[in-house]
């Protein structure tokens, strides 16, 4: 048995777990979890947007970048937790559908990149006492961050539309 197949059997076992079955089979289970996923996405990407727009110099200039970063961090982490846990429940509803979906695989790869970029590169660019950088560099970093995070969102939409 190769590792892909054993992973799939783990997902299949988990997809028969009572809470997952309840969500899958009840009328408003899936729309409910999807709504939580979307609410989490709204808060997560809003915190990213505020930080990136400030980094790019498009407003909020009265507020220190490092202060904003510190204030936003718990909300980014909290919303990321909500999005990942609700996403896991959606995934376990029909794991075989997602495992076979190219946009889903792309979404997961992009999510890893977005998280790595956020907590390494962006964290350095928004840290207190970081040296002043040319605006062009800041704008490029902000654009990359937005491209990664919103790319995750678009890949998520593509799961529904790409056969």
């Amino acid at each position, binding site marked *: 048995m190769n590792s892909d197949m054993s992973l799939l059997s783990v997902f299949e076992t988990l997809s028969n777990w009572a809470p997952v079955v309840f969500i899958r089979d009840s009328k408003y289970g899936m*729309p409910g979890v*999807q*709504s939580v996923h979307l609410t989490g996405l*709204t808060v997560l990407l*809003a915190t990213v*947007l*505020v930080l990136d727009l400030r980094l790019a110099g498009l407003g909020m200039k*009265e*507020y220190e970048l490092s202060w904003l970063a510190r204030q936003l961090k718990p909300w980014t982490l909290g919303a990321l937790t909500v999005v990942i846990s609700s996403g896991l429940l959606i995934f376990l509803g029909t794991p075989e559908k997602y495992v076979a979906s190219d946009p889903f695989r792309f979404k997961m790869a992009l999510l890893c990149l977005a998280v790595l970029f956020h907590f390494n590169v962006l964290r350095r660019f928004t840290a207190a006492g970081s040296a002043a950088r040319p605006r062009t560099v800041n704008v490029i970093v902000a654009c990359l961050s937005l491209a990664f995070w919103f790319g995750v969102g678009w890949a998520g939409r593509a799961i529904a539309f790409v056969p």
Partner: protein
Amino acid sequence: MSLFEWCQWLQHTHFATAIAESDWLFPLIEGSHILALPLSVGMVVIIDLRLLGIAFCGGPGTNFVRNLMRWSSIGFAVMFLTGGLLLITQAGKAYGNAFFRSKLLFLLLLGINAAAYQKLFYPRMAQWDSAGGAPAGAKFCAAFSLVLWIGVIVCGRTMAYEF
């Protein structure tokens, strides 16, 4: 012609069917509608959290609201444009849908709530904000906004399951 008949007529116009049957136009409009959530609703959530004294406190409050609302207005422009187009393609189905009707009602109430905040509390925000926090009425507006925006997301996501 009743409103329902008009909705059905609208859904079957050449313009509406061209969007609905396009391989890429409908996904593009729907994706934009969902991914404009952080820029529109997300910014409002951040403002609400500050008014409630939960997060992002410190620094001048009127600037905070003005900056975020400027970005947010772009998000809401995208929302109403894409939402209007989506509605045209599904007007007949949306007409009698309880979740769609609830969403419209919530949006109407949110509009009234935002206008009330703008008229009653925003003009003197600089004073009460620096004096240590929002008056009870402003906090009520913020809490009302948070709850109803989540309601809009839930209704918007759930109505699509019924089409």
